[in-house]
């Protein structure tokens, strides 16, 4: 088997669908991963993201549709003939083999000679910053080190596409953040097309070029992380990625704003069909409190009912009598980071810009 140059193959999911005995796991999914891009499938458990990954890997066969890698239809190929790399959530290192044997496994399957195997193992161990650990057994390594070996093992064969299944799920929080940077950097350097499956929104936002949010077997929205976060298409996306204040109402005549019974008209940033039901999403960090609310498109009277120190920011819960509900507001502190600068029970102004209110679609 000839070894192709690393990565840079386009992965196309063309209308793939999969059901298990009447239960739809994945419904007619279309997704294109540009060569060299890192794309995250993000969604709650049971949304079909893992089934999608397993179809790409070849462990499941789609009922309909095709999977193409670098223009080649691989839908009918068994996993071992697809030339992909995969890192499992629990790393799945072979416990009965050393680090070097684990990394060399794929090379041995490709019948590559001993000398080249040894050289490649050393090169990969340098790449994942574990030089000299050839003879350790997986059980002797920490979770983070096992993660690196798993990465090295899947990358050493120059896979056309790298599949990451909740790769950081088993690591503790501090390690997770540095591994996010590390994996991101490694994938960028190697220019390898990568499909990441995760239920962790922070992981998806910080690691990928494109995030595809899934629910009940469908992609609700796919786009750049900032776009998905700032312009969520549906209420589910807005609420799944971070916190959101959602307002439901009817679009006023002339599309001037959103009407909610007994409340002032909420301004809309874009055009909307008058008379239709609609929902608006405003991120807590887009809301302003106190003096900062001066001169904004909408201003409401509010009262602080909760204040929490969150480290780099402060989170407030404020009651808005005009809306008859409570809202969340995040505020970067100007003094000491995250210090709470409004008192509980304090009455103040709340406001936001019309452009920060995102009109949501159904779903």
């Amino acid at each position, binding site marked *: 088997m000839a070894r192709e140059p690393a990565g840079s193959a386009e992965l196309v999911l063309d209308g793939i669908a999969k059901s298990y005995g009447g239960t739809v796991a994945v419904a007619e999914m279309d997704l294109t991963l540009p060569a060299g891009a890192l794309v995250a499938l993000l969604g709650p458990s049971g949304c079909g993201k893992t089934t999608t990954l397993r179809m790409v890997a070849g*462990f499941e066969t789609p009922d309909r549709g095709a999977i193409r890698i670098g223009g080649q239809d691989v839908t009918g190929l*068994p996993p071992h003939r697809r030339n992909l790399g*995969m890192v499992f959530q629990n790393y799945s290192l072979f416990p009965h083999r050393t680090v070097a044997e684990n990394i060399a496994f794929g090379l041995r399957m*490709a019948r590559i000679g001993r000398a080249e195997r040894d050289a490649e193992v050393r090169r990969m161990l340098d790449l994942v910053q574990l030089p000299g650990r050839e003879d350790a057994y997986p059980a002797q390594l920490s979770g983070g080190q096992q993660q690196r070996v798993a990465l090295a*093992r899947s990358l050493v064969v120059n896979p056309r596409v790298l599949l990451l299944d909740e790769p950081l799920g088993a690591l503790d929080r501090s390690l997770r953040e540095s591994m996010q940077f590390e994996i991101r950097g490694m994938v960028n350097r190697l220019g390898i097309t990568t499909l990441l499956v995760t239920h962790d929104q922070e992981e998806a936002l910080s690691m990928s070029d494109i995030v595809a949010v899934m629910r009940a077997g469908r992609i609700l929205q796919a786009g750049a992380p900032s776009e998905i976060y700032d312009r969520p298409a549906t209420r589910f996306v807005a609420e799944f990625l971070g916190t959101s204040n959602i307002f439901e109402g009817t679009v006023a005549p002339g599309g001037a704003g959103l009407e909610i019974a007994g409340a002032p008209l909420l301004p809309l940033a874009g055009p909307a069909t008058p008379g239709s039901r609609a929902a608006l999403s405003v991120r807590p960090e887009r809301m302003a409190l106190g003096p900062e609310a001066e001169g904004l498109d909408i201003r409401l009277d509010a009262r602080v009912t909760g204040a929490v120190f969150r480290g780099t920011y402060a989170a407030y819960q404020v009651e808005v009598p005009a809306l008859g509900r409570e809202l969340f507001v995040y505020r970067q502190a100007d003094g000491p980071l995250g210090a709470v600068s409004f008192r509980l029970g304090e009455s103040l102004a709340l406001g936001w810009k019309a452009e920060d209110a995102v009109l949501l679609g159904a779903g």
Partner: protein
Amino acid sequence: MTEMTDVSPPRGRTALRPWMLVLPALLFLAGFFVAPLIDNGARSFLGEEGGFTLARYWQLLSDRFYLGVIFETVALSAGVTLISALIGYPVAYFLVRKAGKWSGLVIFLLIAPLLTSIIMRTFGWQVLFARRGLVNNLLVDQIGLLDRPLRLLNTPEIAIAALVHVLVPFMVLSIASVLQGVDRRLEESAQMLGAGRVRTFFEVTLPLSLDGVGTGAILVFMIANGSFVTLVLLGGGLQTLPLLIYQQFNTTRDFGMASAMSTILLVIALVCLWLQLRLVRRQGG
């Protein structure tokens, strides 16, 4: 105050301690297991005119006849073990990986024969393979494949088949319990790295389930080594240590020699146990 702090038991009675609970079992084992064993071992070292002797062991370990019997015993057990492993592994694999909701039924079918006495099972083989038994009846009278009944009973093959039949469940259950714990994702990892199904099996599945094969093999080997009833009823001229011990006791009435032989059989069993303990310890460590 002094009345209240005095909690020592009344004089003349001893408090019941937890270790005393095992005392009845210990006494039973000491009287009916350890003592006869020591008696038996001592007899093998007792000379004809009293005194200590190693003559019987010297004879057992140098005489070609006895060496042949020891070899035949070990060879028979090894053969039965090998066949049990070859038959048992696929069954265990099916049980763990393919049986799904039928696994309960498969386990029942495996264990059900163990619920009947070994004598009944051995007689079953006799009924099947007798000169005018079921198999010959079918081959000669019903299908007419043969002119004359085959001589099936009292051949080593039937004895081996019967032993395998009795012992294969031990092998299957030992392998299945280890195979159950082999992470499927390890096999999937191997496939992702370019290993086909066969290579995945030999590179990942089999090495990771070898402990189960080892445990099953030692179990089967030990039981086969001491098997008696099956070989008496279906032996087919096989001469093993348990059969010879029986002869020494009942026919030759050379108790000393019989004792020496049983000591050797015991040593083989102890070596097996030691191997198994080592295997389990390595697994745990």
